[in-house]
Every structure is written in structure tokens, then in C-alpha cells.
């Protein structure tokens, strides 16, 4: 049986800017797959190509065995999509939004109502179905969108930043829905996110994407194992972190070293036993150590390892802010 998603050296250029640069990966049926990367890494562009919204510059991709360039209608029939910005109609009720969607996907009349009830129950909105969507909270809107994406029983569900702009509690809830959904209905889920903990918690496998390229692809556990052991992070005063890093390179027990913003992050086994040694070394070098921190590696460290940068929320561009306003107005 064909893979749920198969991508072969997909490229997208916008006026000379390469947003997606020859990426290849495949997603197995029933898998929960994540594209993790900072804003502007090319995640949404990838999703938009796979969902036939935009045409690839070159390369091939198949959804459920259908070519995204040649069999657009078949691809569209097999996918459900939840966008970054809510694509709901605020002036319609939740049920009406779902009903129209069901009609467009050609569901029979009897089937429509049954499916609507089913998906509303799934996202626990059955008692809110008859309210206008503009009255919904952000989390409810997102749940309704997930419900809508599922009405026509798609083989593959696309979630573009499913918890962007939601509070922590709502985010947890959405995570639970996504996990349960994937487990119970067996739908293949591909999601994009720039939240490390989201990718870590949800995904069976993660592709780390940066500057339009996949830099690593594996299960969260294996990705973290790459670093080999614990992360000890030292904060050094006065921009001397490079100096310490240089010295640390000579030590045998140090597996990897990264420096950023005055921090030195070292991976090693038995990190707790190495802390005294590190502090001693710092003192010998007359460095002022401001803080020490020991932890199990997170995906953040993995990202840093592969890209030499940390993922951080970037400043919103005017367009992003405009979109945020539109979102708030419930369009």
C-alpha cells in the first residue's frame, strides 16, 4: 500500500527566494508526523503545496498515492485541512459551517447530519453547535475547524500550527483531541509547529526544517539521543563563552558544544558529576559563571545542534499583525 504522503525533492521559489529547497520525506499511514521549525522555515509553504493550494516549482509529491500536480481533485478529496488562521464564517453557526462543508464534499443529506453530530461530539461542541461562530473562543474555533476537517473522513489531516495563539490550557486540550483522533480513527496527521513541546508530545516522527531544508528526521526520542546524554548549560559573564568553549573542546567527556547569547551548552553523560569540574575550569580561567543548569536534552537542544540557532518567536511583521487583528475580529 502506498504511503499516506510521499514527497520527492519538492521545491518552491517565490520571486527568486527559495522557500522550500528540495525536501523529501514520506509519512506512513496512521502516523502523526510533525514539521518543526521557526517561522519562515518553509513549513506552511510545504503544507500549502501538499494541499494543492500552491503549485510546486519542481519536484513531486503524492497524497494517498495521488499526484498533487496531476490529480488535484483526488488529492482534495482525500485531505482535511486546518489553517493557521481560522477559515470559519463568523456570521454562521457552528453547525452551518459544518453543513456547508459537508455539502461541498458531496455528502448525502442523511449522512450530513449524522456526521456533523459525530464530529461535534468528538470535539465536545455538541451543545454549542447552534451558536454563531463569532461568539466562539479561540479554542472552540480551533476545535470546530478540526471537526470540519474530519467531516468527509479524509485519509490525511493537515494541521498548520494547530495551537498558535492559544493559551496553555486550551493547547493541552487540543493536543489531547489530536492524539485521540489519530489513535481512534487512524487518520494520518501531518502538522506544522514551532513549539518544541508540541512536536515532542504529539508526533511519532518529526522533520526539523530550517531555511527550506530538512536538517533531521526521526522519532523525538532518537533525535534527542543524537546529543548523547545530558545538557549542562553555563552562563558566562562578559562575552567570554567562546573562550570557555575552546577550552572545553580539549576535554574527552564532552560530546558536543554549542555557544549562543553568552551561554555554553555542553552535552555529556552523567552531567551532574561534570558540574564541579566545569565550575573549577571556569574559575581557573577567571571567568564569572552566572548560572548553571542541567537537564535532559529537549528538542530545543536538538534544533540548536542541527542549526546552530535557537527557535524563538520572531517579531511580527505588519502583515502578521494585520492577520492577528483579523483573527481577533473573527473573520
Amino acid at each position, binding site marked *: 500500500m502506498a504511503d499516506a504522503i510521499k514527497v520527492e525533492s519538492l521545491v518552491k521559489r517565490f520571486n527568486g527566494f527559495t522557500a522550500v529547497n528540495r525536501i523529501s520525506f514520506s509519512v506512513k499511514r496512521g502516523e502523526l508526523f510533525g514539521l518543526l521549525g521557526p517561522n519562515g522555515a518553509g513549513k506552511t509553504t510545504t503544507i500549502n503545496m501538499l494541499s494543492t493550494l*500552491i503549485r510546486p516549482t519542481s519536484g513531486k509529491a503524492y497524497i494517498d498515492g495521488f499526484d498533487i500536480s496531476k490529480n*488535484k481533485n483526488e488529492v482534495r478529496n482525500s485531505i482535511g485541512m486546518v489553517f493557521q488562521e481560522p477559515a470559519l464564517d463568523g456570521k454562521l453557526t457552528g453547525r452551518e*459551517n459544518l453543513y456547508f462543508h459537508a455539502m461541498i464534499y458531496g455528502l448525502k443529506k442523511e449522512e450530513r447530519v449524522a456526521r456533523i453530530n459525530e464530529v461535534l461530539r468528538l470535539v465536545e461542541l455538541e451543545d454549542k453547535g447552534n451558536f454563531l461562530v463569532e461568539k466562539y473562543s479561540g479554542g472552540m474555533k480551533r476545535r470546530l475547524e478540526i471537526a470540519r476537517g474530519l467531516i468527509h473522513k479524509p485519509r490525511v489531516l493537515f494541521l498548520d500550527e494547530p495551537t498558535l495563539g492559544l493559551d496553555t490550557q486550551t493547547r493541552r486540550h487540543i493536543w489531547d483531541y489530536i492524539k485521540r483522533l489519530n489513535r481512534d480513527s487512524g487518520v494520518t496527521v501531518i502538522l506544522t509547529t514551532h513549539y518544541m513541546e508540541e512536536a515532542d508530545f504529539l508526533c511519532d516522527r518529526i522533520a526539523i526544517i530550517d531555511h527550506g531544508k530538512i536538517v533531521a528526521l526521526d522519532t523525538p526520542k532518537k533525535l534527542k539521543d543524537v546529543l548523547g546524554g545530558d545538557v549542562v548549560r553555563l552562563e558566562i559573564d562578559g562575552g567570554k563563552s567562546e573562550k570557555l568553549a575552546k577550552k572545553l573542546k580539549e576535554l574527552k567527556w564532552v560530546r558536543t558544544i554549542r555557544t549562543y547569547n553568552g551561554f555554553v551548552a555542553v552535552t555529556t553523560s552523567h552531567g551532574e558529576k561534570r558540574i564541579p569540574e566545569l565550575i573549577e575550569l571556569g574559575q581557573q580561567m577567571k571567568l564569572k559563571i552566572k548560572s548553571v543548569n542541567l537537564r535532559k536534552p529537549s528538542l530545543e537542544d536538538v534544533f540548536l545542534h542541527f542549526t546552530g540557532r535557537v527557535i524563538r518567536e520572531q517579531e511580527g511583521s505588519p502583515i502578521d499583525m494585520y492577520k492577528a487583528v483579523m483573527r481577533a475580529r473573527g473573520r
Partner: protein
Amino acid sequence: MRQVIHFAAVYVLWVRELKKLFRSPSRIIGSLMTPLLFLIFLGFGLKNMALPGTPAGTTYTVFLVPGIIGMGLLFSSTFAGLSLLMDREFGFLKEIMVAPVNRISIVIGRILGGTTTGLMQAVLILLISLIFGMRIPSVLAFFSAIIFMILIAVAFIGMGLVFAAKMKDTFGFNLIVNFVIFPLFFLSGAMYSINNLPTWLRTLSYLDPLTYGVDGMRGALLGISTFPMPLDFFVLLFFSLIMVKLGAFFFERVESA
């Protein structure tokens, strides 16, 4: 992709437009306000203006009614077409773009929805203008006027779609209002007979679809027209078809991202 019209999608887009309209009465009132202000103030203010070439007894207000209906349709229809841009980026339509529905059905659905709401606005203005001395001579005249209203709506929604497909963001809206909508409005002879314009301007008027729409409505409702009514009808029909074709053509090629 097959060019089969997807009736469910067309119907959904149409019903959705109507539901939204009826749920926000402020939108109906808002859309009537500008045309009515024009009608009332210009009508009263210029009541005693001489109207060369009209039968005696035709007041300026009555002369103005078809023009103002045309103006209302021009604005609302162009924006209905343009709003596709907003919808594509922020709304419901984005979701339809990934549904197994071809683009032509989306275009038809949008035109149908926009035409229906535009037509309701136009008929309301016509009914309100009865207060100001407007008379509808016959049922036939009424329905002929309706046909012209529909054609005007379709033509300018099509035009709006072309702009929407070509524009990347909404910042160009003002440009379109000032450089396209207002010139089309003034050239159409909505407020005066285009026979009063200097020849070079009149030539431009002949290229404006609204000219034929307003002239056709005047012919139907007042019995005054610059061109023969069949000519108005066919020219406007031609414009509408071209605009829809162009709108659909550009929209097919649009990428939403």
C-alpha cells in the same frame, strides 16, 4: 481539471451570502445610505436644473434614480468581487480552495451571491424613490430594469474578481476606488446626460459598461434613453460575459498562500 460546474458549491456560496446579509441588517442599511444621500441631496439641491433633451415634467430627482441605482450596483458589485481577495486570505474561501471544487464554480457562486444582494439593494432604492415622485410605468418596465440591474452587477463583480486575482494584498483598494470606480461612475452619465460632455469625454463614456446600464434603466423606467434599448442590452451583456470570462480566467490561475 474538468470544467463541470459544482452545483453544491455554487449553492453553498450563494446561500451563505444571503444568510450573512439577513443576519446583519446594518449591512443592508449601510449599503443603502450612500445612494440615498446622493439621491436626496442632489435631487433636492438641483431640482430646478434644466434637463435638455428630456420630456417636460421629468424632474431631476426622477432622472437621477436610475443613475443612483447604477452607482449603488457599481460600488457593491465591485467590492463583492474584490472581497474574494479578503476571503481567500482570511476566510471561509480558503477552505473551499482546498475542497474538491473547481475554481469556475467558486466564481459562479460568488457572482450569484453578489448579484442577489446587489439586486436587493437596487430594488430597495427603487422602492424608496417612489416617495420622491418616481413612478414605475408597467410590470414590463420593472422587469426590464431588473435585467439591466443584473447585468450591471455581473459585469462589475467580474471586474472586481479580475482585480482581486491580480492583487496580492488589500492595500490597493483605495487605488481602485479612486482610479477605477469613481471615473466609471462619472463617465456613465449617472448624474447627467452624457450628451452634455465634450466629445473626447463622451468617447470614454462609450467604453464604460455602466453607461449602457444606466441608459437602459432610464429607457425602461422613464422612456428617455441616449441609445436604443436593445443596443444597451447587448453591449452590456457583451461586457458582462467578457468580465466573467476574464474573472474566471484570472481566478483559475490564482495561487492562494
